[in-house]
């Protein structure tokens, strides 16, 4: 049994083992969840590395605190967007035995769908030439 979501296939295993996973039901993602998934799309990360990546991706405009980060991670684990990695990538360097997280297939699909959704929104904004000019004033003279 397959179900097409864009160019992606949800396998029967997904449905049977984990219940029906619907990418669309996850959208829109909050900025925190989106950027955490984005950080994990490059590979496994521990909490602090995720936090630094998110700050770097957003030029410091999104600074996750420990509470926000682990609150998101907890819910993302429950939603199976991410999973804990069993192996530590840098076991010798990492003497604090942190937990590492990695993105799941479902998480990757959700991230892609959200990115596509945002891209459509950005295209619409570009079509209206919103970038580079002041917006938001009602009744402004043009």
């Amino acid at each position, binding site marked *: 049994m397959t179900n097409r979501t864009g160019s992606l296939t949800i396998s029967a295993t997904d449905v049977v083992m984990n219940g029906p996973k619907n990418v669309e039901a996850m959208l829109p993602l*909050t900025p925190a969840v989106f950027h955490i998934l984005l950080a994990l799309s490059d590979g496994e990360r*521990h909490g*602090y590395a995720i936090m630094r990546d998110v700050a770097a991706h957003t030029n410091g405009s999104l600074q996750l605190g*420990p509470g926000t*980060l*682990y*609150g998101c991670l907890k819910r993302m684990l429950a*939603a199976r*967007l991410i999973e804990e990695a069993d192996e530590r990538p840098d076991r010798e360097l990492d003497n604090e035995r*942190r937990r590492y997280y990695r993105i799941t297939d479902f998480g990757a699909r959700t991230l892609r769908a959200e990115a596509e959704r945002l891209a459509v929104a950005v295209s619409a904004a570009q079509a209206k030439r919103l970038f580079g000019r002041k917006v938001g004033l009602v009744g402004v003279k043009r």
Partner: protein
Amino acid sequence: MLSPFEQRLLRCMCKIYGVMLLVYPCSFRRGYSREMMLVFRNGARDVVQNSGSWALLPFSLHILCDWLMTVLFERDDMEIMRKALVAAVRDTCCITVAVSCFVVVAYMLFGRDDNALKLLFLRFAFEQMPVSVFVAQGTVTLLAVSGAVSAVGVDMVAVLGGLGLMWLSGSMVMRPVSYYAFDVGAVGVLQSALTVALFSWRLLKRYPSQPSLNAVGK
């Protein structure tokens, strides 16, 4: 490299943050407090190394805001807790009524020279205490313990601990002496069984709920 003052400052801040972490719900703390402490320590150390001790001030404010928001968010089960508290009071009342009925029936069947109602509301011949006093004491204990358990009702350990306490206090309160061993023992067993059954039912009802992903990090 950090100066001794900066190291002391960091240690102090970590201790304060460790205390702040205690406010999170137990289940969240068990899962993530160690990691959160690591993240906090690393973040604070990086801030001091890159920007000096004064930069800890905005960092601390940021952490404080994050803590406030997420404590409230992780405790967003306030409504669940309120419902749990109401349910606990209701359960306790039901248990009390059931136990009282049992006592009445038991004394009707096995009572000595007094009738059941008299024994329930008047004085025991031996203990100089009516059964209703024990029932009332048991009710108060149950209310207090089940209320406390409900307040931290998301935590399985607290629930199990509360059940143990409840059983212990219940059987102690309801067991003045072994004068009417059958009745008192049976009351304790009945009370425990009812409590366990009701709490198990509530746990099964409450735990399968999944958190909403899209309520995160808004």
